[in-house]
């Protein structure tokens, strides 16, 4: 193994990293161009139009879209992680009927794409009078098969049962054990799942495409798409908007990077 760490692996990694970064780099430089110029030159070096592009973005309801996306992602993330952790906790701590069946059920749910039910979901939201609000884009994240599976694996692998046992002997209630003791212990797993759910709901495209039909409901991806009229698309503005939209994800990932890796190790490896 050690011998593989030759200069060769550095070279390979640098090449791959370059490929990973290249489109990003293009996104950054192209966002500094006026749309018409993007196609007339090779936009490898930054130009001077970034300010105008950004002001175009802010002239439309970018901030509201940003707020909507944040709201959707934060609520989806919070509820999904809580609900998933509860399932994970129950699977570790309790013995109950249908436990095995529930496990199988969760694995199955993990594999069923929500998009398949979107017609039914649409009709359901209609009868609940939730169309025209942000809720249709949030509710379907609440029970996420992947999330539940993830937390089950994680709690199983990183929570010693003894902690719960001894807490019970000390007379702590179940809720107190869950929130006060278990939750802090499973932080890396929780953070990893938070990051993933936030990422997925932030980037979600199909569901908002169906439910957003009013500018006040725009999410970032839909907003970016709307920065175009039928015959001219303002790519410069779109790209600078996208750049701004990627920032929260970048911050989350870089800050949570350590926990994230820890979470991955425990969640996926032990699974």
């Amino acid at each position, binding site marked *: 193994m050690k011998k593989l760490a030759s200069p060769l692996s550095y070279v390979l990694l640098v090449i791959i990293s370059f490929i*990973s970064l290249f489109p990003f780099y293009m996104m950054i430089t192209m966002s500094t161009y006026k749309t018409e110029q993007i196609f007339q030159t090779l936009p490898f070096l930054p130009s001077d139009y970034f300010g105008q592009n950004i002001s175009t973005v802010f002239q439309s309801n970018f901030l509201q879209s940003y707020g909507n996306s944040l709201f959707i992602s934060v609520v989806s993330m919070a509820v999904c992680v809580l609900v998933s952790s509860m399932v994970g906790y129950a699977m570790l701590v309790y013995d109950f009927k249908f436990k095995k069946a529930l496990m199988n059920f969760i694995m*199955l749910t993990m594999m069923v794409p929500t998009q398949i039910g979107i*017609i039914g*979901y649409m009709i359901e939201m209609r009868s609940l009078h939730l169309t025209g609000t942000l809720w249709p884009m949030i509710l379907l994240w*609440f029970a996420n098969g992947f999330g539940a599976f993830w937390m089950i694996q994680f709690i199983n692998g990183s929570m010693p049962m003894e902690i719960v046992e001894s807490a019970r002997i000390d007379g702590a209630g179940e809720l107190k054990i869950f929130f006060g003791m278990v939750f802090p212990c499973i932080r890396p797993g929780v953070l990893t799942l938070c990051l993933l759910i936030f990422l997925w709901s932030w*980037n979600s495209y199909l569901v908002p495409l169906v439910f957003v039909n009013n500018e006040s409901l725009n999410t970032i991806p839909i907003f970016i798409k709307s920065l175009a009229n039928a015959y001219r698309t303002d790519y410069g503005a779109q790209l600078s908007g996208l750049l701004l939209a990627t920032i929260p994800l970048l911050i989350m990932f870089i800050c949570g990077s350590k926990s994230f890796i820890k979470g991955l190790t425990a969640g*996926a490896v032990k699974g």
Partner: protein
Amino acid sequence: MNRKGNKKYTILWPLFFVAPFIIFFLAFNLFPILYSVFLSFHDWSGIGDKVFIGLDNYVRIFTQDKTVWKSLGNTLYIMVLGFPLSIFLGLVLAAFLSNLKKFRNVFQTINFLPYITTPVAIGLIFTFLFDWNTGIINKIITFFGGEGVNWLGNAKFAPLVIGFMIIWKTTGYYMALYLAGITSISEDIYEAAKVDGAGPVKTFFKITLPLLKPITIFIVITSLIYALQLFDEPNLMFNVSTTSVIGGPDRSCLTMVWNFYDVAFGSTARLGYGSAVATTLFIIIVITSLVGMKLMNKKEGK
């Protein structure tokens, strides 16, 4: 404190902790699918009354509608183009990376970036890169004396671009997962292998790879799910102008979900028929999932 037999611990508390998930799942995930199944036996455009037509929609899917099967084929093809290579690359990179002392975090963060990029951005950037006349890829090719390729306009190449995009997007994610796995393997095992005189390549294949099997299964299954749901990127890449063709050149990038979306909401709204297409997809996915679960259970047995 004997928990066994105490109803509080076998029924009430478990129910309390499990209920939210079950309720939310039934209400917002399963119910819509079941309702779609119900709709699939009807002819309905979203307005007016639903007309019960029995199995007619399914008869059409299985006897007439080639697009459904073409889109299934496209999806599988794109999946085969992209995922095996990205999983393999992820593994190899992780193996290299695990040996680095410096820059490990830097490389990992850089290569993870594509995974967090919004599909809208990916679609935009890739159309810029791969355009026939003005794309950077073709400019590079012609610079070296080659002839530009009609990447996005030719049914042969368009799926390759999507495949490449998948590799670009997911390699870093798989690398992170594998790296997590490799670092969790105890050094003692490697030391023991060294003592036994195993070379690095042999160690990798005989020790590392088998120990990574759970991760590999996890990755294969999640990528399978991701592939079957593919919609955002192809749609955003090939739905750029008012005259864009649905599904890209010759509909070669029309994935199952895109086809379903188009059938249900496209120029002729057919929610009933769309539901039937969705139900068919659902069945295909459940079957695939069951196979996947078999694999997972096997792993548990080990």
